[in-house]
């Protein structure tokens, strides 16, 4: 069980996370944030394995990943 969350106000829409994701579930949303960038997002949350590669790749520390049992 894993969950990925995005701190949307910090995202600059560089898309580096979309290629880092081995499951290819990250995509750019059509909505924009305060800075005017399309933000990275995930809809198929259940496919996330919590590997954290997107976190490693993100230059702006937008992404947080949680892993483990639901409590």
């Amino acid at each position, binding site marked *: 069980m894993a969950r990925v969350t995005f701190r949307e106000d910090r995202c600059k829409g560089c898309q580096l996370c979309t290629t880092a994701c081995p499951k290819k579930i990250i995509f750019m949303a059509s909505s924009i944030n305060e800075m005017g960038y399309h933000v990275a997002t995930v809809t198929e949350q259940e496919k996330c394995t919590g590997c*954290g590669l997107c976190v*490693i790749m993100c230059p702006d520390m937008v992404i*947080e*990943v949680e892993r483990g049992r639901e409590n």
Partner: protein
Amino acid sequence: MRKITARPYSLRDVPFHYCPGCMHGIAHRLVAEVIDELGVSGRTIGISSVGCSVFAKHYFNVDMIQAAHGRAPSIATGVKRVLPDRVLFTYQGDGDLAAIGIGDFIHTAYRGEKITTIFVNNAVYGMTGGQMAPTTLIGQVTKTTPFGRSVEINGNPIRVCELIAPVEGVAYVERVSLHNPKEIIKAKKAIKKAFEMQLNGIGFSLVEALSACPTNLGLSPLEAVKWMEEKMIPFYPLGVYKSPAGVV
């Protein structure tokens, strides 16, 4: 569920001013994570350079000094000699280290000062608007080389790791890249090793991190990563150039 990632303590929770896709953010995070893991946050002093990384002093949650252009290794030398128990690192770009600051850098290396230099090489002057840097690749188009860098007119690019590896005072030299997660994990190990060289008092250590500047290359961040893979890494081969075992 448990968070598997967290912002390092040595990095302030403020947004970076860097452009989308700039890899300075990744390099900042790696340095901060290494400082945390080594437990030296309270006695680390960073020297930020002139260039896009000039505002690194706002981001690192350690004592920081902002050096004049290219003079970061000299200031680190001074601080290290006055306070030898401190951990000193300089964070420099290619315009700062390889152009105006190469004199200070080479002399610091020859003196074998026990400091760590993090050198972020993006092959272009970023902050001033994309002029040719000493590390600009042959044929690369920049603001000041509109027809591509030519060997006849502009000379050959400087390979800093190869230049500094044979020097006696240098303990550790490695070139890493920040273009994919695998290389970023390797880069973190290299930075940690460089800091350990300093903590063990072995000598000068340098980590060159290849990075992309999508804004000044005129490419999207993903195209810039591809450009790094196809053009930059073949010219600047990755790997360890020097370790205490000797020149590789």
